[in-house]
């Protein structure tokens, strides 16, 4: 345990000055309890999203249309597991254990990105997830590379480097469908129709309605607001959809010359709340699958522990 020589008020001043000076906060530094809690919530949710996100895509690994697509999808899903690991480890530097985080996920105390509660109905969904869901995640994660907590920022740098492949493989596979026959093009359009709005929801509530936003901005945990990030995602996605010859399912989508951005329609916030609060199409499946796999792996964890103990006992005996 690190000991601090100043009182709380002084420590808090030093802490905020560091943040204001664009310095990173590191694990052994003093930090306000709320900053710690806020970070644990955000980083663990981020980690859970990576891990739960493996399910909708994993659903298509055995049915990928070619061997190449299958290898690519396997590599991508493997990356997501790795990203979950970077993030869990970075949350652990804040004094929470992996077990506590997993339990919070499984009991529903912790959330994850609501988009993974939608089903992957066709192969085109895998492409749409890469293009849109990973695309939205990248917009968010690029800004998080500058987050104030050092281990989180460094994890984001690593994640962003790997994530670009995810988006490009998704878009490339959608290109094949969009430039294919009428039925294939329809598959791509259908996937866009179903994934567009949930992708916009990934950025969370409007700034005015976001429970954690203003404090997170003051502490520079978040560097850009939900609405700012959502706008950049819309702006970058429109030309990408146009190139594919697909139509974004929003009749209010229009270029606004004055703002220099696309205007777009309102998100169905009732749906957002319903899904985030557990009542989406796949919420129960996602968690029960996680619990099932976790329990099925118990014997592996037990065996590893037993082996370690045996090894230690043997070494002790040898040195005695």
């Amino acid at each position: 345990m690190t000991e601090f020589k100043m009182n709380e008020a002084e420590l808090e001043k030093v802490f905020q000055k560091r943040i204001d000076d664009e310095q990173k906060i590191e694990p052994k530094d003093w930090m306000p309890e709320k900053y710690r809690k806020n970070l644990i919530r955000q980083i663990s949710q981020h980690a859970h999203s990576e891990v739960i996100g493996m399910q909708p895509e994993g659903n298509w690994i055995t049915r990928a249309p070619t061997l190449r697509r299958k290898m690519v999808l396997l590599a991508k899903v493997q990356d997501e597991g790795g990203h979950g690991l970077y993030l869990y480890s970075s949350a652990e530097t804040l004094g929470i254990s992996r077990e506590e985080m997993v339990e919070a996920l499984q009991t529903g105390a912790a959330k994850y990105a609501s988009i993974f509660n939608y089903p992957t109905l066709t192969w085109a969904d895998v492409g749409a997830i890469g293009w849109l869901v990973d695309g939205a995640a990248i917009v968010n994660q690029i800004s998080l590379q500058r987050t104030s907590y050092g281990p989180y920022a460094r994890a984001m740098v690593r994640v962003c480097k790997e994530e670009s492949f995810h988006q490009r493989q998704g878009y490339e596979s959608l290109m094949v469908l969009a430039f294919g026959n009428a039925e294939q093009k329809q598959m791509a359009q259908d996937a866009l129709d179903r994934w567009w709005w949930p992708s916009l929801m990934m950025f969370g509530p409007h700034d005015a309605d976001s429970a954690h936003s203003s404090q997170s901005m003051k502490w520079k945990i978040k560097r850009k607001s939900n609405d700012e990030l959502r706008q950049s995602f819309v702006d970058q996605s429109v030309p990408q959809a146009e190139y594919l010859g697909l139509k974004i399912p929003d009749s209010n989508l229009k270029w606004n010359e004055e703002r220099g951005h696309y205007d777009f329609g309102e998100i169905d916030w009732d749906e957002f709340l319903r899904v985030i609060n557990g009542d989406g199409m796949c919420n129960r499946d996602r968690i029960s699958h996680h619990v099932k796999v976790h329990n099925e792996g118990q014997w592996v964890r037990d065996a590893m522990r037993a082996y370690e103990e045996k090894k230690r006992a043997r070494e002790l005996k040898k040195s005695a």
Partner: protein
Amino acid sequence: MMSTEKKLPLFEIFVRSKRGLDHKHVGSLHAEDHTQALEYARDCYTRRSEGVSLWVVKSSDIVASQEEDASSFYDPMDDKPYRHATHYELPEEVNNM
């Protein structure tokens, strides 16, 4: 003549040169315990304010892979070019992904 004096354990020293950067290995030294290693490291490796934070780790606690094992460790990665973003050729109009 070999000294009968008990040898001091070796510690590996890591310095964080600036907030936000990873700790980087800079060298090693002998010390009685972790606290002493930290003090020696300060005197030895940060005399010119090279860092803002030090880590000391007992060398015996470090487990390293061997270069001879490189093939079994890394060869399988060489035939997976699809793990790289540049593997996917996109047209100019949408290439800024």
